[in-house]
């Protein structure tokens, strides 16, 4: 956290290298957040870039007294993802069943991969498919808690809702996810 703060200060002083370091430190986290939200690698790449551009433009508004840089960054990312979700809702309804072409291109055939990798990929895809069926409110809460490892306080701060609401959304989201996954595994297992 202290390191992030130093990097932010150096960025604001005009050091391009500090911005590069900040970007390299957090790009994986933002990229995964975007991927969990969208379920598509191509869209996640575009969104990650947009989120960092927004962070770069609004870096002066970050107040270290209000919380950690990671929390602030997650909030910026979350707001952008929610806006994006609202913008693309109609499009998403029509293409929700389409597979991500980027994933298909990047993924070699099952014969070429070790068994562990195949299983890992299948689990990830199943989880992502289950996440896609959640409502955005529940999905973002579950992602921040179970994939980004944020505390309830931080999630409440990021989402701008009371902690009780966060807990409720996460719990309902988990139950929903568990049901979906059980169904998926049942279908897969025959």
């Amino acid at each position, binding site marked *: 956290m202290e390191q992030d703060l130093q990097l932010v200060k150096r960025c604001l002083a005009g050091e391009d290298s500090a911005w590069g370091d900040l*970007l390299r430190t957090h790009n994986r986290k933002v*990229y995964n957040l975007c991927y969990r939200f969208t379920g598509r690698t191509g869209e996640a790449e575009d969104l990650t*870039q947009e989120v960092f*551009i927004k962070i770069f433009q609004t870096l002066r508004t970050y107040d270290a007294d209000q919380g950690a840089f990671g929390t602030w960054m997650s909030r910026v990312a979350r707001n952008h993802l929610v806006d994006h979700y609202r913008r693309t809702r109609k499009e998403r309804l029509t293409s929700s069943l389409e597979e991500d072409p980027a994933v298909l291109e990047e993924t070699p055939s099952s014969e070429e991969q070790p068994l562990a990798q195949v299983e890992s990929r299948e689990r990830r895809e199943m989880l992502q498919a289950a996440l896609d069926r959640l409502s955005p409110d529940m999905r973002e809460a579950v992602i921040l808690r179970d994939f980004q490892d944020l505390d309830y306080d931080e999630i409440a701060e990021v989402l701008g809702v009371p902690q009780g609401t966060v807990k409720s959304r996460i719990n309902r989201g988990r139950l929903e996810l568990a049901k979906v996954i059980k169904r998926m595994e049942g279908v897969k297992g025959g």
Partner: protein
Amino acid sequence: MTHLEIENLASDYLEGQLNVLRQAEVERHLAACPDCRDLMAGVRRLFELCQAAEPLEPPPWLVPKILRATVGERKPGLGERLIAWFRPVLQIRVVYGVAMAVFSLSMIANVAGINLRHVKAEDLNPKNWIYQANRNGHLMLGRAEKYYYDLKVVYEIESRLRQLRAQPTDEAPRRQAPAGGSTEGAPVSGPSLASNWTPGNAFQVNEAAWNLRAFSARDGGGHRSVRSTIP
């Protein structure tokens, strides 16, 4: 405890956030309710999946792309810019080309009699180049023309002199013939060159030779060949 209460407490129970009393109540219900046990097993399975899910690695070009979109391209330093500027010039073929051009120009300058040490500012004026080229062209043409006419004169003089030298040897037997014998059978020829010789002709030849010598002396070394042909 109802099923709905179990559902609401599922996350807290699995994360260990319930107090001991509440936790015991949940466990009692789970022990008696297979549906809720099943539900709790499903959430546990979800936790396992989330923990096992490895984060995706962003593509390697993403960070440079974002850097370009935010801070722009990295500006090269002065040294890098200088090297980049000189890089095409420092290629072997360019160096060879420049060396050959300098060599060719120096050869041309040497042949044209241009001494680079004595070059003045006005020599660099293209107007002067044209004037000099025109002047040198005319001089060369004049010299060639003069050389041609000199050769004609020299040839004429040589042929006259050859005639004059050949004359006494031809006349000697003819003059002696009438003294001791008949002139019959002697070749009868038309007026020979020797018969045309007169003191006036000799004077003309001498005058031409003299003029040529004077002309050669005046013209300097440019007509050495002409002078050498004069007997």
